[in-house]
């Protein structure tokens, strides 16, 4: 049990490795776009972080080496559409690193999840680019073309299942007549689920947040669809659509910005899951993970304070 991890960098690396399965699934179904986005994001992250560390007169190599900037970049790159133009990733990652992390004092001092802050910023600023998703497998050449030549992505695009369901419902459709399933998204979610289980097994993350997060989603979605099964998405579809598993195991578990007490993690995760379903159902944006995470980040100090474990002899 003693010394589980040699360094914080090792934990970050574990998290990056664990993302591989989900990224692999995304690659299989949606092609080269995601690879390009990750490369772009990582290069941006390292550059911006180095510049800022230089300005702050901090040692560059050891801080870059901690892997947190790379992890932020990868998380953001998988969250944005794989056919988004190149500047989306660049702007988003820069914002995440500068305003999400460095301005607060660097790793460990930021109250908000940097990747989600970057994502929310992008979604609000560039809603069109941020909601145009790849519909099918994209070859390397196609990906280069659409990301760098800024050729219209319409030919390749398709709405996400969550988006589609939402639009249909608002147009008066009923659940029983809609396609709720998406094989591609289910596989991507499975990939992230497996990666997450690996992190759990390695004890990089603890079980409380993912478990509470998923129960929050299931219970809220169940209650809604129990009341009106024709207008609310069933729980099992919530689990396998959008960024649910990525959120549960990789984003909500960001240790810096999540609750840190065992009980607090349960509360944090559960409320997060609840908020996501509520935002997905009643909000204007198709997926609600980023906003839910940012909202819950604010509550962390309060949750932590009131959920301190019992101390010996007190």
């Amino acid at each position: 049990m003693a010394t589980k991890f040699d360094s914080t960098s090792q934990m970050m690396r574990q998290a990056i490795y664990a993302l591989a399965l989900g990224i692999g699934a995304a690659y299989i179904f949606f092609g080269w776009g995601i690879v390009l986005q990750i490369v772009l994001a990582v290069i941006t992250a390292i550059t911006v972080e180095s510049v800022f560390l230089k300005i702050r007169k901090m040692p560059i190599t050891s801080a870059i080496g901690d892997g947190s900037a790379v992890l932020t970049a990868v998380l953001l790159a998988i969250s944005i559409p794989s056919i988004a133009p190149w500047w989306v990733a660049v702007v988003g990652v820069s914002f995440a690193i500068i305003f999400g992390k460095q301005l607060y004092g660097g790793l460990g001092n930021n109250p908000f999840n940097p990747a989600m802050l970057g994502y929310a910023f992008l979604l609000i600023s560039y809603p069109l680019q941020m909601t145009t998703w790849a519909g099918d497998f994209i070859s390397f050449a196609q990906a280069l073309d659409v990301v760098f030549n800024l050729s219209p992505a319409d030919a390749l695009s398709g709405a996400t299942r969550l988006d589609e369901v939402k639009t249909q419902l608002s147009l008066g459709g009923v659940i029983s007549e809609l396609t709720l399933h998406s094989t591609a998204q289910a596989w991507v979610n499975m990939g992230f689920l497996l990666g997450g289980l690996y992190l759990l097994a390695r004890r990089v993350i603890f079980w409380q947040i993912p478990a509470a997060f998923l129960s929050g989603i299931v219970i809220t979605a169940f209650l809604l669809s129990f009341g009106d099964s024709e207008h609310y998405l069933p729980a099992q579809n919530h689990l396998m659509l959008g960024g649910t598993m990525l959120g549960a195991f990789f984003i909500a578990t960001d240790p810096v910005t999540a609750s840190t007490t065992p009980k607090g993690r349960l509360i944090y995760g559960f409320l997060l899951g609840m908020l996501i379903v509520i935002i997905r159902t009643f909000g204007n944006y198709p997926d609600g993970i980023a906003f839910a995470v940012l909202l819950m980040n604010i509550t962390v100090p309060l949750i932590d304070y009131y959920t301190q474990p019992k101390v010996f002899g007190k």
Partner: protein
Amino acid sequence: MFKKLRSPASQLGGIVIANPCPVDNVEIIQAPLPDKVVLPLQQRMGDEVIPCVKVGDKVLTGQVIAQAQDAFCVSIHASISGTVVAIDAQTIPHQSRLKSKCITIKSDGKDEWVEHKGYADFLHELPQTLVDYIQQSGIVGLGGAGFPTHAKFNTIKPCHTLIINATECEPGIMCDDALMRHYACEVIRGVEILLYISGANQAIIAIEDDKQKAYQSLLTLTHNDKINIVQIPTKYTSGAEKLLIRSLLDVEIPANKFAVDEGIICQNIATTKAISDAVIKGKPLISRIVTVTGDGVAQPNNFEVRLGASFAHIVALARPDSHPHNNRMGGIMMGIDVKTLEVPICKVSNCIFINHTKAKVNIQECIRCGQCNQVCPVGLLPQQLYWYAKSENTDKAMDYNLDSCIECRCCDVVCPSHIPLTQYFSFAKALHRQKTQGQQKVDIARERFEFREYRLERNKTERTKMMARKKEELKQKMANDKTQKSKIAQAMARVKQEKNGNKI
């Protein structure tokens, strides 16, 4: 009667640390008599004891050279026979690295003992006589803290349970293991003496489950129904007094209380042997068993050595190599680094670690990963405490129960960022003490000032009141005077009238 505890230890925090330097054959090697010994006069508590010998005096082994004068001190004895050559400040193995007053005795090589006789028939003595005798024999807790043994018996609360801590507080230390194997008889006798003195209903000897030989040797010699021998999981911090009490008796002693307040007395296993030697044979505490270990010595083992001999004296017996070393007294977790080996072995020196100097590790930022609160044996949140300790926000740190931290360093060990958390916590504790003391002073000063203001104000109002009263009185008097005057006038008028009448 003999139970092996189920392992609730996983819920209790703490960490399993592999023995950094396992030894196949744990034994006790008698160290040769040192040429000189240095015996510090400062003890864990109380003032320095005052020497009762002078420079130049001849002393015998076991002779009292400084007499205990207050309740928390014990007497100090010459650990060899010879001549007192100095009474001055010497470097001692202490965290402060300050010098402290010591008596230095040069050996005459004869090791002649002073006449000694104990209370072999201790059951016929009054317990208090034995407690005083233990104090006179210079016995303190040999586990590492050095709390005066007799002081635990001088409490009002009757004792119901005696706990003998044989857990060898940290990995790598093996002096208690060796002691139990070689001196099982004395150990059991010591426990019986303690049972008699304390009047406890039961004694529990707690041994870690990796010390099977020691366990067996005690088991075969125990024929007393009151003595239970219990094996506990080998896990770091399970030997800490309050945590041990929790795992044995399921009683939690609060941070501001002691075990004796709950009627529980804890003694270290080596202390019981010392008590047995003192009470049965009349031999005061003049030697102890010290483990010398670490990757810097070729033959790590236990050495029975006279108190006051230098660290170097026994380290040499363990054959150190020539690399640069980091020397540490006590365990790898809670011990203290000593710069030089020319410091005397004290009653609390249970272990000397000679390790190769290691490269410094890179300290990273805290990411609140929570590995630390998983291992904290008292259930704290080191990641939160660190945040507040770092920003010197001690009030908030106290809200997170900073005062409950036992500074076991479990969190330091598991921290992936290698943050020396415990250092931050002891710093924050000191800062908090300073602040509260400062605050107390400020409060007192303010109260005084406010009282002075109040007093001046009170005097003033009293004065005005008094003046008003006096004025009133005067007025009254004047009024009275007026009536008086009018009476006089009337009288005068009467006299006049009479006079006039007379004239007529």
